[in-house]
């Protein structure tokens, strides 16, 4: 999965969890929880759905890296790419 695919996937999952948000105005480098009014439970669901769809598990210790849309997309793309 490349960075664009994972970017689209994260947006698609957000739209399922919080269909009220306007992802068009999202600053991709800022904390999605604040930007999109997601609570801890929404964020947890986002992580779980990403794992279901891609097999990429994100441990809590890595959460600081995936708080922004760009961070999460890059994390998922990198983790989902076999290291040869």
């Amino acid at each position: 999965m490349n960075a664009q695919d994972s970017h689209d996937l994260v947006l698609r999952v957000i739209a399922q969890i919080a269909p009220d948000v306007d992802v068009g105005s999202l600053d991709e480098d800022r904390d999605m929880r604040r930007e999109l009014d997601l609570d801890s439970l929404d964020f947890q669901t986002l992580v779980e759905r990403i794992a279901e769809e891609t097999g990429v598990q994100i441990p809590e210790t890595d959460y600081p890296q995936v708080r922004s849309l760009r961070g999460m997309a890059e994390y998922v793309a990198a983790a989902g790419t076999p290291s040869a």
Partner: protein
Amino acid sequence: MSAVERDDRQSRERHWQEARDRLDGLPAGGLNIAYEAVDRHVVHGDGDTLAFRFLGEDGPPEDITYRQLSERTSRFANLLADLAVPAGSLVFTLSGRNPDLYVAMLGALKACCGVSPLFSAFGPEPVRQRMAAGHGRVLVTTASAYRQKVAPVRDQLPDLEHVLVIGAGADTLDAPGVHDLAALMERSSKDYEIPRTDPEDIAFVHFTSGTTGMPKGAVHVHAACVAHSATGRSVLDLQRGDIYWCTADPGWVTGTSYGLVAPLTCGVTCIVDEAEFDAVRWYGILEDEHVSVWYTAPTALRMLMKAGPAAHEGSDLGGVRHVCSVGEPLNPEVVLWGQRELGLDIHDTWWQTETGAIMIANVPGLQIRPGSMGRPVAGIEIALMQRDAGGERLRDAEGRLVPVAGFGDEGEIAIRTPWPSLMRAYLGAPDRYASCFADGWYLSGDLARRDEDGYVWFVGRGDDVIKSAGHLIGPFEVESVLMEHPAVAEAGVIGVPDPTVGELVKAFVELKGGFAPSEDLRRDLIALGRRRLGAAVAPRSIEFAAHLPLTQSGKIMRRVLKARELGLLEGDLSTLGSTP
């Protein structure tokens, strides 16, 4: 009244009188929470002690001493006077956890105004309902919260005169009565003498949800701080020099009673984290800020448990002396995890918005029985009252409540009135208020058992109120919003068990003729819920149903929905009407 009952009553009265005597009282007479929480520490020479340390999401922390807090809250009280806001008015707050929020709450109390803190994750509808019910004249908020949650309903808030904007952006709001809070604070004097305050004057209004109807505004008075300071010492073990972290938001009663009033009346230093939950960050705060007393919630503890040992690897939590939990039943697994993984005993406590302060607790020194919420605290007497098979309160031939017969029997928790922090009214709802009391007892609606050593074990709610992440959610409020959708004929909302947050809000929806279930419609309904109610209250899942079970009188039978969801027997369905 028997001699034993008389002795018990006198002993309770003596306990609360002694707790009152440990407070100062106002120089001008009476009792004011803000004086006991802030100013008197300056008078006693503790002005340089840290009252608060605010941890921002980024950047350095902001420290506020008791002296600085006294001056800032006086400025706020003065600015209310300058705006000609009369004593007894209700000041609402709607903001994340930042210094100005806490200053505004305490400053309004100094000015003898009531304070009603709203949870910042509420959507416009819960905000409107609460502010309209409280006839709020003043709102302290941020520009973005105003734009998202208040502007859409401002025309339905005719009593709102002043909007005090925290931080930047007041100039970007095109609305009546908007003021830049910082500018007003700057102009106000830091000297303020709190007027004589009757201990029975209104201090806080906390809204809470019931099974039916709109949220109820529980009114609390200044005398409540007698119970807050007493339980702060006896249950939370707060002592001079402590660094205390209450993780609750002031938008809920715990964040006010125990995030503000109790710790400050005890003169300790409060940590406030402005960020949302994050396991690694939380362990870091406990260690780096040298937190000695920690009051948190089962949902948070379960999320920490889920995060696993990697999240606290290398953390030294040896400085944490005492941990308490509140908001929902603390399951034994969490207690055992705390002992095993963190080396900490987690002390469960029980109370409600209506009780104002902790009523039942595992106090320091009491041996913890994992899964029990402990025993009644000093000054509090409880009984468990029987209910009949239909869930109604049982009465004897004289119409009096009937306590359970023996140990281990299930009954509704009842608390002998009065005590200082008991709510004094539901705003504008005297009948609903009266229905909470009988025979000198406050009836909590929570069901429990008691063992022979007096430990109380939570069983469940006696009504349909949902408890998600420690927050009470009224199913009717959620159903009302879903019913606004043109496709919805009927909606029934229940809590479905969830291992982390206790219950998740789920809605069953029956569609009008001409509408068919679809993914788009489901998303539409979830979006509507979140937009109007906010993420904290909105349903997380929607299930379409051909017919919803109704009573003869046409009310949704949530009990049946829940039984079906859980695959249980549906119980007595004799009141079930024929569904269309």
